[in-house]
């Protein structure tokens, strides 16, 4: 298997993890060929997770902004985000490998919940690392993980967000590599993780392509998705990458595009090495990883999946930023207009389309609504107190 996308990717990890990574790659290749495993995954996707998810024509939003907007409703997937696609796949892969203990990082808590859910389903031990700051701002998901039987470890070092949670999960993995599968939640990390996560998220793009062809008898003009590490985006983009369809990845512009105030890695970063891969990275001139910010915990990350770096460099996908306030506005607008409360992460994709509605005038636009916003009500309430 190729370890790189163009010049991006690779396996920049301590030597101790190399055997586990090559075993994972081999197991994944066998898993893909195994018909029983495939059937089992399809069974859970359909009967447990609720696939396929609907493609919904957002009539009210469309008439408000003057283009035709379809939403791929990953928010309706069990546990409320696209993350379960990957965790169901990887937990079956972990079982296939005979691993009994699962560890994961989480930012927004959606991946943590999806991992805890899959682990409960298969009766595996589950430990989730989460930055202290994220545990505070996404507390409903902390409660959910505990109910699901996972141990949630508060990470109180460094940025205390997703980045520190990944550091701590990697440290756990180095110690327990013989018994433990690291169920990584986005299309990031050392090879083969970006390939594995994409494989399990491709279902979004496959379904969406069929659904839009059925509804409109044509492909969309644009496909838009938010990009944290890039898993929901790579999932939906994969369905259209060979078509002449415009694709846009929306990153978190945070408060402004000054270093430290955003998480717009592809928009503002340069290549660097973090968490096992060479990819775009927000860093200072001396190679230290920069502090980042986003109102959304799931996008608050200085790195990005290596395939996105490649897609940017070859010009196949355009990446741009949506600011905190624009995402908030979209969050509120979609709730009012369509009765759909989106996750703050997904609100960045919606916010981008709203802000640039003139670009999309009369166009057919497909937005990946990667998750629902119940987890974000605390953030919204505290902003309302401050009158934002």
């Amino acid at each position, binding site marked *: 298997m190729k370890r790189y996308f163009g010049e991006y990717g*690779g396996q920049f990890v*301590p*030597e101790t993890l*190399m055997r*586990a990574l090559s075993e994972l790659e081999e197991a994944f290749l066998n898993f893909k060929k195994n018909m029983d495993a495939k059937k089992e995954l399809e069974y859970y996707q359909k009967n447990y997770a609720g696939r396929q998810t609907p493609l919904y024509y957002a009539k009210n939003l469309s008439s408000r902004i003057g283009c035709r907007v379809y939403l791929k409703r990953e928010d309706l997937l069990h546990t409320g985000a696209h993350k379960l696609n990957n965790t169901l796949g990887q937990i079956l892969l972990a079982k296939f490998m005979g691993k009994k203990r699962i560890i994961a990082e989480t930012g927004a808590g959606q991946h943590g919940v999806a991992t805890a859910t899959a682990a409960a389903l298969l009766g595996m031990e589950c430990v989730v690392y989460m930055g202290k700051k994220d545990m505070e701002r996404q507390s409903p998901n902390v409660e959910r993980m505990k109910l699901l039987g996972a141990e949630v470890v508060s990470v109180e*070092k460094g940025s205390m967000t997703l980045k520190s949670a990944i550091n701590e999960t990697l440290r756990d993995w*180095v*110690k327990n590599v013989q018994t433990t599968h690291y169920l990584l939640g986005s299309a990031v990390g050392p090879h083969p993780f970006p390939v594995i996560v994409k494989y399990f998220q491709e279902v979004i793009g496959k379904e969406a392509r069929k659904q839009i062809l059925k509804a409109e008898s044509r492909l969309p003009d644009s496909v838009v998705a938010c990009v944290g590490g890039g898993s929901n985006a790579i999932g939906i983009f994969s369905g259209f990458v060979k078509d002449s369809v415009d694709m846009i990845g929306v990153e978190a512009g945070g408060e402004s595009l000054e270093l430290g105030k955003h998480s717009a890695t592809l928009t503002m970063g340069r290549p660097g090495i973090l968490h096992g891969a060479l990819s775009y990275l927000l*860093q200072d001139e001396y190679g*230290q990883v920069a502090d980042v910010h986003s109102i959304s915990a799931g996008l608050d990350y200085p790195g990005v999946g290596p395939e996105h770096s490649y897609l940017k460099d070859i010009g196949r996908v355009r990446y741009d930023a949506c600011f905190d306030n624009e995402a908030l506005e979209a969050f509120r607008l979609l709730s009012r207009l369509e009765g759909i409360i989106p996750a703050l992460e997904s609100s960045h994709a919606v916010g981008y389309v709203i802000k640039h509605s003139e670009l999309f005038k009369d166009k057919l636009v497909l937005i990946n609504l990667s998750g629902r916003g119940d987890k974000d009500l605390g953030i919204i309430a505290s902003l309302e107190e401050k009158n934002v």
Partner: protein
Amino acid sequence: MCKKGIYLVCDYPTKDSFFEAVRVCDDFNMDFLEIGFPFSDPVADGSIIESAAFDVLKKENVNNFIESTKEVKKLFRNKLYIMTYANIVFGCGMEKFAAAVGFVDGLIIADLPYIESRRLKNVLNKYGINLIHFVTPESSCADIDKIKKSSNDFIYFVSTRGITGGAFSLDDETRKKVIYTKQNSKNDVIVGFGIQNKDDIKEACRYADGVVIGTQAVKNLKSGDFYSFVRDLV
């Protein structure tokens, strides 16, 4: 033969006490020094080295580390290595970094496994800097053979599955791997991770050519007990 090396976090806890520690290592004729260049996300390190790194990063950057390491070169007569993470070298530009540190014997990059090492190695070769490879309890004999063949400086044997700052032990399997690594090796095999005291050194050197002591050295330097700590090692 039992070589002893000390790992110090560059400029920690202060520039002065860091240089003083280097002098102590020279006085007690330590065989080598590893100078740690702090990185914001040191995934191979436990909390003692990590928090030392964060401390230093509040006021300094890699240019300061390079300047201090030049001073170290003047104060310390034996071998000198830099230990850091891939993005410090990559983020500076590999050529630029290598050109600036051409005076050290080698580089140790905690998140650069053998499989990813070729590009950097080609650059370092031009400047006469060696790249140190790791062998771990997870390495197969085939892995070890490759690493033995392509090493031109010591081989860093990581004693346990884990991060820096743990306890020292060599299980049966691992001991066999150390012995295998040393067999017909043209280079020294140095054991690191978890070495705390004279007993650990003795145990490691039954099988290996030497040890490196990191977390305990950093801890004792911080608490002011560095001199007696190093004295008691020899």
